[in-house]
């Protein structure tokens, strides 16, 4: 079990470093195993440094930087054994427009092997989707699922378009 963990750790660390640099257009990150005699008991430290900034604790990063770092880490693990589908619930909420774009491009990169379902309030994310579903509560407390076309999305506020369905 110890070697399996060590091997997985090394792979995740490499994936994390690469995905982070892609999402942050630079900078560097690392996963550090603080070895005690037993790697199964050691501390795992996440190090993340956006480009131009100094190395520091991840707690000092901004809300958006932390979100992007966590996304990089989760996808670093995902790459070990990609899941056939992945649901993301409003993970883009803290991201500025530029980072939403980078987040979406990351999903596109993996979308050949994984079906992504992205719940979002963000117009840029919606524009990047291949398909759109809307959830409505025309009758209070009762949810219904509807297909939404991209014309409906661009024509007016998509949420209002949904209300009218």
């Amino acid at each position: 079990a110890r070697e399996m963990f060590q091997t997985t750790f090394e792979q995740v660390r490499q994936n994390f470093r690469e995905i982070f640099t892609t999402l942050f257009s630079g900078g560097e990150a690392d996963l550090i195993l603080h070895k005690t005699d037993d790697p199964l008991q050691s501390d795992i430290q996440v190090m993340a440094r956006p480009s131009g900034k100094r190395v520091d604790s991840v707690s000092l990063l901004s809300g958006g930087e932390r979100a992007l770092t966590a996304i990089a880490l989760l996808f670093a693990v995902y790459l070990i054994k990609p899941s056939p589908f992945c649901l993301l619930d409003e993970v883009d909420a803290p991201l500025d427009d530029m980072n939403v774009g980078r987040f979406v491009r990351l999903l596109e990169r993996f979308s050949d092997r994984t079906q992504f379902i992205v719940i979002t309030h963000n117009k840029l994310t919606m524009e990047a989707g291949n398909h759109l579903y809307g959830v409505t509560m025309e009758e209070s407390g009762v949810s219904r699922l509807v297909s939404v076309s991209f014309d409906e999305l661009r024509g007016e506020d998509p949420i209002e378009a949904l209300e009218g369905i």
Partner: protein
Amino acid sequence: MRLKRVEMIGFKSFMDRTVLDFRDGITCVLGPNGCGKSNVVDAVRWVLGEQSAKQLRGEKMEDVIFKGTRRRKPMSSAEVSLVFDNTAQRLNLPYAEVAVTRRVSRAGTSDYFLNKTPCRLKDIRDLFYDTGVGNNAYSVIEQEIVGQVLDPSEDKVRTILEEGS
């Protein structure tokens, strides 16, 4: 092994039978606050065997059954199915389509089915072993995970890595 669709009936705010077809690529789900988007995420978690009602925002498992509204009566059971394309025979079952179903009734326990045949949750987990399908850290990604993943005291990274090795 593509995911073809999710079917829900009586699950949280999805009173009527609802089918969400999974398309290739990136699918965006949009709608106003409270309309039921995260309930879809809960449904997928639940059918994959989520044991903790708290993880599904409830106090007891019964909370996932449609509770009724001011105009509608509560329902007596909830059922969710995940339907996979198995034409590549990735799953060890002699069917082109494999449906995983979970059903719960009030004051009852959960029942599981594979293609309508009753089974145990263990059978489902064995079936999907090594496919990446399951309640791992990257099949369902929500906003709260950011804080947990980067909080050194939570030791979440270790848990995620151990799952993956």
